[in-house]
């Protein structure tokens, strides 16, 4: 790790000001991605501003027809929350599949969403559930938030404070974990809001989370595994590496979607 200065923010306002004054500073919530990156000397921030401990960023509640999760809420807290299990059980299920026990005890939803790792789990839930990313500046709809590999709509100095999820009629997540890293080789989140409003989001398979619109249309007509089985997924543009060719990931998109649908159909 390169030399840096650690700063523990006492409030979200302090963090905001500090980041504004120090353009090379990096925000850290759980640190589950940032610290491994720093350890590999792949980034050289001047400061690390720790917002992971801010009580104002924590918490889980249902407000009206939305589930609101504070940005610094740990994966473990989401996975074990009775509120989440009741409101969006698929989200609790997903949270329990992130990383491992130790990561779930430190990592936070806001950190994962801000980082937008193309193989992270949460972005698929945020996108499929049509959630809003609430920041210190504004509210960003999921469809315009994710911009590609580690890229988001967040501007410099903008901090995620919470994620607001509309409650679906039913939702499910199916993940095929990378055999070595445990990240999503492919994860598919399916959300049904009723009235033919279906959203399907895919993580891991491509260079960033994306919606699978053909599946959404097919499922709107017929919410069943068979509806997905009839679709073809093109391998073009999907990730190919030493672990698997793009064709394999294309296959997983379909298979994981089938499995997600099957679990709630």
């Amino acid at each position, binding site marked *: *790790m*390169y*030399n*840096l*200065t*650690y700063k*523990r923010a006492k409030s979200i306002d302090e963090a905001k000001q500090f980041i504004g004054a120090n353009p090379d500073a990096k925000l850290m919530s759980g*640190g*589950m991605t940032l*610290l*491994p990156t*720093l*350890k*590999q000397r792949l980034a050289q921030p001047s400061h*690390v501003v*720790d917002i*992971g401990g801010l009580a104002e960023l924590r918490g889980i509640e249902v407000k009206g027809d939305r589930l609101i999760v504070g940005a610094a809420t740990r994966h*473990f807290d989401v996975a*074990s929350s009775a509120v989440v299990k009741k409101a969006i059980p698929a989200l609790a299920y997903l949270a*329990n599949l992130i*990383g*491992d*026990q*130790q*990561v779930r*005890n*430190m990592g936070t939803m806001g950190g994962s969403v801000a980082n937008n790792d193309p193989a992270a789990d949460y972005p698929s839930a945020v996108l499929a559930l049509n959630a809003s990313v609430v920041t210190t500046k504004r509210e960003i709809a999921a469809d315009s938030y994710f911009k590609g590999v580690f890229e988001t709509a967040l501007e410099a100095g903008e901090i995620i404070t919470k994620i607001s999820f509309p409650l679906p009629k039913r939702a499910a997540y199916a993940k095929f974990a990378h055999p070595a*890293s*445990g990240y999503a080789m492919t994860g598919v989140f399916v959300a049904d809001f009723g009235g033919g409003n279906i959203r399907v989001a895919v993580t891991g398979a491509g260079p960033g989370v994306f919606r699978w619109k053909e599946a959404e249309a097919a499922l709107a007509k017929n919410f069943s595994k068979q509806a997905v089985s009839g679709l073809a997924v093109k391998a073009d543009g999907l990730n190919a590496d030493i672990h698997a060719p793009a064709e394999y990931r294309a296959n997983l998109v379909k298979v994981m979607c089938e499995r997600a649908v099957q679990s709630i159909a």
Partner: protein
Amino acid sequence: MAKVAMKVNGKQMSGDVEDRTLLVDFIRDTLALTGTHIGCDTSQCGACTIQLNGRAVKSCTMLAAQAEGADIMTIEGLAQGDKLHPVQQAFTECHALQCGFCTPGMIMASVGLLKDTPKPTDEEIYHGLEGNLCRCTGYINIVKAVKRASQLMAG
């Protein structure tokens, strides 16, 4: 350099370290508690697992400064004097360790998983130990030991 202070195994401890110092290096080098091991550079092996405020975390994926004011337990703090913790007792009874290098982290992760799941199924044990690598035992006896520990803890 900055001073960091925390409670470690029940005792207040502190030291002066560079801000970029990882918690695991603080524990090992500054506090000379070398039971917490480092087995990788990418936060995958779990050998450095400790309890931070009662939860299992990887001390290689935290800055020492992040733990300022925290309550930490390392493998050295688990046994009560000569009396082994039930997880330790189960590990030795079930021959769940060979070279022993992953063992402190494996035990701390097991303590964590048993806290959340006092009567774990096999699947829950696999899930709880996903963040810990062992190259010697094939995990067969580790899984047995976690079950045995669950029995011992139930009394």
